[in-house]
């Protein structure tokens, strides 16, 4: 009986952990160049030393990007911008909640 109770509790904890992971926040903003022009078509990605790399977000015609379901963490993320496959920008950011982050590529 105790064994079953333990297993049930573990299963519930596992489900709760998964839910917490799925309930991430959004990191969104825009990418502009030195002339404040929006930069469309570039890839914005988040990198975390533990979680790895996020799904990419491609900037739209207004240079906007959004990465949803990002788990908040005390350790910093690194936000990266790629021109094709070429890394052109990287900066550490703290994600404790929804974050609006505008990138200017000087």
């Amino acid at each position: 009986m105790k064994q079953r109770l333990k297993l049930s509790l573990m299963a519930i904890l596992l489900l709760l952990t998964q839910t917490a992971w799925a309930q991430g926040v959004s990191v969104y903003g825009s990418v502009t160049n030195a002339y404040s022009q929006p930069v469309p078509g570039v890839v914005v990605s988040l990198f975390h030393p533990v979680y790895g790399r996020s799904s990419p977000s491609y900037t739209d015609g207004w240079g906007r990007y959004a990465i949803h379901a990002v788990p908040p963490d005390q350790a910093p993320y690194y936000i990266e911008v790629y021109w094709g496959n070429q890394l052109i920008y990287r900066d550490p950011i703290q994600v404790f909640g929804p974050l609006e982050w505008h990138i200017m590529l000087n």
Partner: protein
Amino acid sequence: MGTYDYTILGAILCGIIMVFGGIVLLYKGAIRLEVASKDPALTVEMFQKELKFSTRNPALGLFMIGLCFVVLSIYFGQDMAATAIEVRGRTEGVDEQVTIRLQSQWPIDAHEGQVHQVVRPQLDVLWVVVSAPGYTPHYESFARDELKRGVDFGSVTLARAAPKIEPSAARIAELPTGVEAPPLSEGGRFGSGGSL
């Protein structure tokens, strides 16, 4: 495969076991077809009583329940089957690496950039997004009926919107010692890249 897919497969398996189990039980004489009562032994009504199965024979009831499992699972599992979609088209006048993506869009209610919603993806509309760095992306939508014929976005010419940005060490922060960022191709460990 997700939980939904496993549930569908489990239901199909249950149905098949019931149908074949019924045959085995009939063969072994554990149940008999001639044992029937005056009242219906089993009645199944589906789709708001529009579809009704009824039998006076308990042995046949076993088959019917099994068949219902199989038929309903196949019906509800149709969307999980991967649909092969042929994509055709070409881009012109772009001197950068072109990315062509297919994406579906489902409305999500976000509050202050935070989202928690269950979405059941359906291929009602598929978007083709042709993009290249520095060029205004091209969006084209295809309805579900059109997808059967494949996706043909024809010839697309993208307009340049921003000049090329060369990499500069001043813009690239160093990673901590011993940490190495995986290549872009290894994306998708977390988060979902989308649009605002």
